[in-house]
């Protein structure tokens, strides 16, 4: 390459560059979203030639902080220094021109365009009359960039034909084409196989040797030791600490992530007898790359908590059981009978109800009233001849449910749109009760619900199991999982990595299993059965 000039082998520069001035210095950054303080007064340095890992639980503010640096969000307060000079970063383009590029978790490529067209989007080289695009030049330049990365990709290939790993290389190539001095990677390994991760690490090390400062957001704690120089832990929108990766134990990192207060499971109000019937038995469920041989059992009157980090595959498992995305293989037994569930309608017939994490989109008809929403899934029971709906029957059913669940509404005619989040959640529960569901799957049941309403939802869960329902709760909030569950299943990357009673479990224990790759629990695993 032309630039392998008189500066000598790049390896020797590494040591010198690490001790340099920071290339980016964030000082007192804050960012609000309506109702949430996502990042509060955070300061962080990125040095040239370092890999700076940023870790924390879901919602700790890692991505938000980095999106401020990358120009996706505007900060509310604080300063950004780039090479010692204060800068404003109003747009992603402004960040890229400074030399700050971010590779987002969901890749932001245009699948129908070629590799080169993606790399140079917005910066096309104009040919004749300033109108024609000169693909030959950008193809050549892209070839040079990918050669630099030692990744052979034909710049003329369409991005949609590349693997996720290759697509990531395209994003890195795009960042390099801006002469990036700071590269932010948000969960870069989430979708990669082990060998692909090795390749990525290779490239990261090479970029490090060239003096690029990198921020590496990851949930996979075991990777941090391998690849990072410093680790910054965030919790609840604040930084907890920044430590050198070489001399910190991962257990300490986990402790910092979950906080000093150790949540123990509250004693379950009505512990499920271990001898109760198995109502749902899932065996060897698989779907593509997201569900890898998942098996578990749910007993009558039990609340089974599903813990894991974002992208662990929990929602995917639930959607597979509910028939929303049918699995490739595996068996589902409901109350001892093997059933085929190919659509949500099948699931409902077998008494399974699914309460989506996005209830406004999937759970409710916001423009309809409470009564209509309650009877929606069971309308066939209220029909007279010719599809006529018996209004008096639906009315009395609605009134009964409003009373039983304590739905706070002026009446059954109230539009669901006007109710609070917690009350809306109860309407969804009521809908499934009316549809005779006795296996209820709650996906993030308290997302977007205020603290007061949360405890009411928890009480509702307990009431339901006391009435003989069986419940699965998927939650990313560890205190919530510990509080409501009888038993906890932990998933990581499409596999179940841990399964244990909630009594005596701690956040640290769940976190260790949740960050465990390839089955085994991460460092110093507590003794406990690992079912795979």
């Amino acid at each position, binding site marked *: 390459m032309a630039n392998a000039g008189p500066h000598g082998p790049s390896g020797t520069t590494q040591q010198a560059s690490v001790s340099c001035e920071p290339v980016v210095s964030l000082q007192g950054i804050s960012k609000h979203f309506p109702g949430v303080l996502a990042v509060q007064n955070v300061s962080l340095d990125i040095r040239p030639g370092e890999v700076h890992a940023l870790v924390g639980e879901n919602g700790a503010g890692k991505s938000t902080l980095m999106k401020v640096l990358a120009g996706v969000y505007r900060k509310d307060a604080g300063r950004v220094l780039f090479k010692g000079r204060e800068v404003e970063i109003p747009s992603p383009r402004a960040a890229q021109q400074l030399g700050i590029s971010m590779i987002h978790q969901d890749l932001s490529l*245009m699948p*129908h*365009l070629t590799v080169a*067209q993606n790399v140079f989007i917005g910066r096309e080289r104009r040919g004749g009359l300033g109108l024609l695009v000169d693909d030959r030049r950008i193809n050549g330049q892209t070839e040079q960039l990918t050669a630099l990365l030692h990744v052979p990709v034909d710049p003329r290939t*369409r991005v949609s034909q590349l693997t996720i790993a290759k697509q990531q290389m395209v994003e890195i190539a795009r960042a390099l084409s801006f002469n990036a001095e700071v590269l932010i990677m948000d969960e870069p390994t989430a979708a990669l196989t082990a060998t692909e991760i090795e390749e990525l690490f290779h490239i990261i090390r090479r970029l490090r040797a060239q003096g690029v400062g990198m921020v590496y957001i990851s949930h996979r704690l075991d990777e941090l030791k391998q690849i990072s120089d410093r680790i910054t832990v965030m919790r609840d929108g604040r930084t907890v600490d920044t430590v050198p990766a070489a001399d910190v134990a991962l257990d300490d990192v986990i402790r910092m992530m979950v906080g000093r207060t150790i949540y123990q499971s509250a004693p379950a109000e009505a512990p499920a007898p271990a001898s109760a019937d198995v109502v749902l038995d899932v065996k060897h469920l698989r779907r593509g790359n997201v569900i890898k041989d998942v098996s578990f059992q749910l007993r009558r009157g039990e609340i089974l908590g599903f813990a894991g980090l974002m992208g662990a595959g929990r929602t995917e498992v639930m959607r597979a059981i509910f028939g929303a995305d049918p699995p490739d293989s595996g068996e589902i037994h409901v109350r001892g009978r093997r059933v085929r569930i190919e659509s949500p309608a099948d699931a409902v017939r077998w008494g399974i109800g699914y309460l989506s994490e996005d209830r406004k989109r999937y759970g409710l008809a916001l423009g309809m009233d409470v009564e209509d929403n309650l009877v929606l899934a069971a309308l066939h029971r209220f029909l007279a001849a010719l599809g006529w709906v018996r209004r008096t029957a639906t009315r009395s059913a609605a009134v009964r449910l409003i009373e039983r669940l304590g739905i706070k509404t002026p009446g059954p005619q109230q539009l669901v749109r006007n109710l609070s989040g917690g009350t809306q959640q109860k309407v969804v529960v009521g809908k499934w009760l009316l549809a005779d569901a006795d296996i209820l799957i709650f996906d993030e049941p308290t997302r977007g619900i205020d603290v007061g309403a949360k405890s009411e939802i928890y009480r509702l869960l307990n009431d339901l199991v006391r009435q003989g329902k069986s419940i699965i709760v998927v939650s990313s909030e560890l205190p919530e999982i510990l509080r409501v569950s009888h038993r906890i299943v932990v998933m990581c990357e499409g596999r179940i990595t841990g399964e244990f009673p909630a009594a005596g479990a701690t956040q640290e224990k769940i976190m260790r299993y949740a960050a465990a790759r390839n089955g085994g629990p991460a460092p110093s695993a507590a003794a406990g059965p690992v079912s795979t």
Partner: protein
Amino acid sequence: MRQTAIAVGAGEVARRESIFHTAAARKFLAFGGLIGLAVIFSLASPYFLTVDNVIGILLATTVNGVLALGATFVIITGGIDLSVGTVMTMSAVVTAVLISVWGLPVPLGLLGGLATGALAGLVNGVAVSKMKVPPFVATLGVMMAAKGLSLIASGSKPIYFSATPVVQSLTMDSAVGSIIPALPVPNAVFFLFGAAVVASVILTKTILGRYAFAIGSNEEAIRLSGVSVDLWKASVYVVCGVFSGLAGLIIASRLNSAQPALGAGYELDAIAAVVIGGTSLSGGEGSILGTVIGAFVMSVLTNGLRILSVAQEWQLVVTGGIVIAAVYADVLRRRRQR
């Protein structure tokens, strides 16, 4: 097994793609369909493949073909333009008013027609990109307004080019026929092919085409890349308007008049041609060659069924079925790829 077969196929597609910027597989579907129809009709009727009839088919494709060219751009961005038919009529009426009522020179009149199309496209574009009106609604409004304006400007009566025979001879004379008398192909056909070449160059070689694909592919990503999405989206609707204007000139010339009542329904034929040609209504994929093939599928079908004395009502039914079958074939192809 299937995996490897697809991988090999994909490599070939990628190589051939650079020529026309679309998957060869999709065009093959439409092209195969076109050949299939031609074979069936020529077996069924000896008249189908005569020079006269083929020229008839070519001529019948010109207006719908040019409209479909413009619609292709909009559909590639993931939008839709329902106004191409009535905008075409409005352009024809404006041209006729300028030439036959105001007595302006013919070239100015033609330019006025194209400008009318561009203006209507600009209104569509601003409504969609700046005002964020959904394309379906914005272009529906322009479709109705253009129809009304055509009737107003013409006094609801056809305007003829009686004093300027040159208007009709522009498209209906045959430059080829004057050299090779055996092949009296009217100029209109070459307007279609010329317009298709221009459209193809714009789509595959210019920045506008690049951004049209990018917007349809992942609008948010291109916005984050610092591209002014609003500007380019509006430009795409202007390009579509200009093609509608050109179609207006061709139809005015062919009929030697502007017929203000004409135009409604043309937009659906145009969209059908685009879709048969393999352009995806969800955006990001499509090609001009496909659209031209799609337009020919439509007119071969109409022509062939007429030769076989199928009643016009049944022609519509068959065409409708073909549109759905074409898109279904594409859905199947995609499902297999995934």
